[in-house]
């Protein structure tokens, strides 16, 4: 156990010395890894923001119950009581036809037109918010409410919810494909730098094997090399995303100000960052492992 720890410490120290000996080349390799990691990571973070933005801009999808004109106040109370019993309804709001007309006058500035109307054309409505956020359960709730007595129609901006869901699904798939492709690139990049390391350390490997080095011992520094390179690439990738978001936020702020609400891109959560770093380190390790496996047997003493 002690020996094992010493070996690992020495392997890590050896790799750090190698990095220090060739700082520019090391940094450039890490930068390449960082760029290939930052693309999917940045898109992923952006997608999360779009999701947030969408719910902020539209609010949660709500169902509007249009009551029949024959519904009197006792029927309205009855419906309200029924709605409040639903477990998957988060919020119920009643807007009477008079209130509706006032809001129309005030908010939309149609005062002149409505003033010309002989009688209020609006129905009484309930607006209902679901506790669910996915389109499927909201649509199910809509169908149930539609069946209530004295309800003419249960309206749901279903198309909007589905469109958003489809769009986000598309984005997620794109990020996934990009991550796989660039992850593959990362494995190849690491494999190649490790191959160069092995070639330049040929003598050292041969001599080490001659004086009793085991395969894991010979392999260890290279695995550290790959993993550490991937980890540093991950850190740099995070820095790239953070800087990019910071730069974009200036414009995002101006843009959302124009739409009179405030929204800024938020950086990935700690869990996401940890995921990014682990992903980078694992892929680096994998690249090194594959490369060492392929090239180490070529350096057999003879």
């Amino acid at each position: 156990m002690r020996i094992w720890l010493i070996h690992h410490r020495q392997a890590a120290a050896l790799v750090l010395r190698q990095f220090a000996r060739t700082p520019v080349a090391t940094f450039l390799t890490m930068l390449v890894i960082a760029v290939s990691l930052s693309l999917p990571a940045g898109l992923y973070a952006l997608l999360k923001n779009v999701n947030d933005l969408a719910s902020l801009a539209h609010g949660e999808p709500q169902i509007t119950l249009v009551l029949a004109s024959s519904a009197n106040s006792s029927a309205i109370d009855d419906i309200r009581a029924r709605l409040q019993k639903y477990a998957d309804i988060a919020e119920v709001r009643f807007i009477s036809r008079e209130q509706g007309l006032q809001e129309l006058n005030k908010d939309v500035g149609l005062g002149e037109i409505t003033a010309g109307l002989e009688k209020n054309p609006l129905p009484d409505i309930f607006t209902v918010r679901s506790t669910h956020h996915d389109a499927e359960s909201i649509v199910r709730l809509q169908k149930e409410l539609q069946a209530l007595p004295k309800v003419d129609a249960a309206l749901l901006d279903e198309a909007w919810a589905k469109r958003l869901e489809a769009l986000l699904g598309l984005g997620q798939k794109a990020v996934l494909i990009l991550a796989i492709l660039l992850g593959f690139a990362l494995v190849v990049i690491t494999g190649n730098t490790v191959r160069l390391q092995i070639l330049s350390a040929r003598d050292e490997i041969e001599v080490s094997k001659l004086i009793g080095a085991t395969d894991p011992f010979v392999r260890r520094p290279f695995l550290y090399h790959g993993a550490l390179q991937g980890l540093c690439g991950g850190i740099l990738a995070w820095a790239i995303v953070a800087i990019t978001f910071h730069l974009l936020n200036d414009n995002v702020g101006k843009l959302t100000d124009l739409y009179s609400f405030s929204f800024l891109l938020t950086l990935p959560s700690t869990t996401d960052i940890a995921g990014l770093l682990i992903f980078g380190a694992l892929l680096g390790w994998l690249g090194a492992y594959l490369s060492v496996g392929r090239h180490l047997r070529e350096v057999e003493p003879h």
Partner: protein
Amino acid sequence: MISFSQVSKRFPGGFEALRDVTFTIEAGEMAFVSGHSGAGKSTLLKMIAAIETPSSGSVVVNGQNIGKMSRTAVPYLRRNVGLVFQDHKLLFNRTAFENVMLPLHIAGFDPTEGARRVRAALDKVGLLNREKAFPVALSGGEQQRLCIARAIVNRPSILLADEPTGNLDANYAHDILEMFKSFNQVGVTILIATPDPTAAREWKARLLTLNHGALAA
């Protein structure tokens, strides 16, 4: 300790480096292998360190059959066999001290205890004052002694030397052989390949003579 039984080695292409070689070297023995260039001396030494495997016959070292060893067992055998190479095989990006430290590092020695042993080994070959020097700064003879220090630092029970005095002048060669003799006196089994059979007589050691891969009587 080292036992060859009807060992042959054919290389791809048909060259037969060893032919039906049988001999035994007891623990604590010192022996020379001589023969012309290409007689199979190096191949014989390499088999003892599991660098080559026999095509037929068996080679048993410290109770382990070289031909049938698993790949993972080889390093542990080598830790018990010190190797001295004609071309030294030193690492030029490491100091003398670090070169000698390498076997201990591989075997997982405690660094403090390791450093003590490295200095003891350097002292034995007379290079204690050069521990910070890089191999390029050492003369041919000093490089050879550094290689010997690296071979003995792990206190192996067997020491193999392939033409250790090949490039050295007579005085230097004598010093080096003197050194091997002193290791032998503390119980190390020693096998030295040399093109010159007179050394064995001088050191009253056993002589194995190879001729085109076969052992001469």
